[in-house]
């Protein structure tokens, strides 16, 4: 297809090549390391679940035990396989014994890596089969009851109480939502464990727990069957428990997951080594499970200027694309993020937003791009806010976005009320229908504002990527090139949970998941 923006394919290719080199370089680091959260994820996939009397999750207790015993470098898969051979028990039973203090995994006689691996493989296969069954169920829904047209209408619920969330989600589903995202309680990203069970107390959101996932999934399936449209469920595979939550999402059939190491580094001050290693395993799981990943580039524009820093969004999208490819995520599951965040007082701001949105679509044509609504310049004037959201919807349909996070007229006031969601859906449906094929119909003036803007942004992004390629990603972040935030390589939260792998280390899931579904 001819570029409407007259973008130079050679520059796109050069940017992509630089991003690939950046990701390659990082991949070497990633593959040498593991993390406590990576190891806990393996346990969860092996079926270890539950908490002790002070609500510590079993996966944490077991991984902390091998970490304290100096065994983290070998990986929990080895220790669990070894313990299974020596005790004849299941991973869950072994974990319970570790928790009660009746078993020390590090004090058992040890078998060879090969034996441990062979012991654990049937359980690994069982976990993969379970996930595949969920993917099949999704495919089955999509081929029977079907789905909404793109852009999918993506709505958030955030009451803090999973049961209240379910009610809000049910209403949104009936009104036309295609995706329900359950916002997490503020602060969960910094917990180094995943809370357990159904929860009813959260601030500005609801805890991501496996039980909460299950409760919401069940309701969305019911509503979806009733309205004849599959409703996707979204949550956050981010923060210190990134891969664990990805595993929980895979098991409970989530369809969309936020997943972006750069976001955690910049906006949650999570250690970059930790989260890049965590991101890799979580993306492998996400890719394998048919989940659409969402990246967090939109956030750069809430702290930096949306016009001046547009190229950082594109540069990050290029890198996220390469990181995702390395983890086996197909382009069709890459919900790269961007946003409509320019100051509404900008003359021709709409043209610039349109230009950038079409640019993203042209550069990542197969990706279901995730488009974020105005937030920074929402004021409390709900009437103006509704118009800002309308312009955002107009750009989305024009540029062919994949996932449309609907803006709320009450943004900047409160988490959405029931009627806010209805009004947002009505707004989007009106515009998407009324201007459905505008993108096919309209071309742009050669060297006009719209073409030039996209070319400029692409050029700057390519330049930035080449600099990062030279400098390395760690050092670029240390210098504050993204979102104007500086983060040291050895700073932030979670560094203590990173370990070098030893020669006998193995993670059975990564190999099999990258090998494909069969």
């Amino acid at each position, binding site marked *: 297809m001819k570029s409407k923006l007259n973008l130079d394919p050679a520059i796109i290719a050069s940017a992509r090549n630089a991003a690939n080199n950046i990701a390659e370089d990082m991949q070497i680091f990633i593959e040498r390391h593991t993390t406590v959260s990576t190891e806990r994820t393996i346990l969860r996939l092996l079926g270890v679940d539950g908490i002790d009397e002070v609500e510590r999750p079993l996966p944490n207790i077991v991984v902390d035990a091998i970490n304290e015993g100096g065994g983290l470098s070998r990986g929990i898969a080895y220790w669990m396989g070894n313990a299974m051979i020596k005790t004849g028990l299941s991973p869950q039973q072994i974990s319970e014994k570790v928790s009660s203090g009746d078993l020390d995994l590090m004090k058992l006689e040890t078998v060879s890596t090969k034996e441990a691996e062979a012991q654990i493989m049937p359980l690994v296969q069982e976990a993969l089969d379970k996930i595949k069954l969920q993917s099949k169920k999704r495919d089955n829904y999509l081929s029977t009851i079907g789905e909404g047209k793109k852009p999918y209408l993506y709505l958030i619920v955030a009451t803090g109480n999973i049961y209240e969330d379910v009610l809000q989600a*049910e209403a949104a589903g*009936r*009104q036309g939502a295609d995706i329900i995202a359950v916002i997490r309680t*503020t602060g969960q990203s910094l917990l180094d464990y995943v809370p357990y069970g159904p929860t009813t107390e959260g*601030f500005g959101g609801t805890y991501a727990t496996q039980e909460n996932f299950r409760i919401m999934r069940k309701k969305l399936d019911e509503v979806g069957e009733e309205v004849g449209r599959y409703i996707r469920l979204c949550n956050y595979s981010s923060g210190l428990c990134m891969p664990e939550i990805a595993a929980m999402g895979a098991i409970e059939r989530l369809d969309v997951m936020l997943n972006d190491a750069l976001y955690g580094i910049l906006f949650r001050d999570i250690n970059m080594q930790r989260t890049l290693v965590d991101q890799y395993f979580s993306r492998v799981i996400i890719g394998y499970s048919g989940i659409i990943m969402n990246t967090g580039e939109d956030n750069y524009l809430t702290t930096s200027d949306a016009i001046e820093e547009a190229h950082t969004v594109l540069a990050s999208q290029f890198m996220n694309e390469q990181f995702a490819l390395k983890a086996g995520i197909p382009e069709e599951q890459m919900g790269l993020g961007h946003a409509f965040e320019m100051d509404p*007082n900008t003359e021709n701001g709409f043209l610039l937003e349109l230009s950038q949105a079409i640019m993203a679509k042209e550069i990542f044509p197969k990706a279901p791009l995730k488009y974020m609504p105005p937030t*920074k310049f929402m004021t409390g004037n709900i009437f103006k806010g509704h118009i800002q959201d309308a312009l955002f919807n107009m750009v989305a349909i024009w540029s062919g976005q994949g996932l449309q996070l609907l803006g709320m007229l009450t943004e900047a006031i*409160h*988490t959405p009320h029931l*009627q806010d969601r209805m009004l947002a859906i009505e707004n989007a449906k009106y515009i998407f229908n009324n201007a459905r094929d505008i993108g096919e119909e309209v071309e742009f003036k050669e060297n006009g504002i719209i073409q030039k803007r996209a070319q400029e942004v692409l050029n700057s992004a390519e330049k930035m990527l080449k600099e990062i390629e030279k400098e390395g990603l760690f050092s670029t972040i240390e210098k504050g090139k993204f979102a104007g935030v500086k983060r040291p390589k050895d700073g932030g939260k979670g560094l203590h949970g990173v370990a070098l792998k030893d020669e006998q280390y193995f993670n059975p899931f990564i190999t099999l998941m990258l090998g494909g579904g069969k």
Partner: protein
Amino acid sequence: MTDIAKIDLTKVKPYGDTMNDGMMQLSFTLPIPYSDEASEAAKVLARKMGLDEPAVVCSKDLGIGYTYFIMYGKCQHTVDFTTIKVNKIEVEIMDKYEVEKYIKENIQRDVVIVGACTGTDAHTVGIDAIMNMKGFHGHYGLERYKGIEAFNMGSQVPNEVLVAKAIEMNADAILVSQVVTQKDVHIPNMTQLVELLEAEGVRDKMVIVCGGPRISHELAQELGYDAGFGSDTYAEDVGTFIVTEMVKRKLV
């Protein structure tokens, strides 16, 4: 031709298109199924709220047995505007250059300001707008002010860490941003900061300011802060308050 009715400031009513028509618009949801009875219930409620001639101009089925209404009605109540008093920050706001000049003339050294989004709050939009170089809407942040040393600690900073930093930097002022205020999560957090500062014996040596879209000056004072800033606040508002307060309290 008749004149329009004069305003009686002791009996003020909403204005739609005629003086004292009392017209108000409102919208809300009732947890009852979409029906004629639901609209009637909305009107009954509006009458109880003091609205005459309530009219449901739009109602929508929200899908779970709940109904949304947009309504108009004529307010019967009035307010006596002449008796209204609001607790506000009483200071003439200076612009960036005036603040810089004020520091040069009245403080004669750098003013150190430490800011953070405290507790579990991860939303730095507000503190960034006030403190960072770039600022917001064309109003430069405090970092760019000559004579101000601004240090933004970012998000999810525990109160203890903020206090330690403020003491270490010998700060003249602390800025606390609280954006997440659902279920009043900010209240205990903001109160704890003041308690910590008092325990450390530094409360009186610093100007303590908070801000956020749901923060009012009145609330701030209730919680023991010197000032609170809500929406539509820029760096110069906060800067002016801090430097004048320092001079007023002889903290220079």
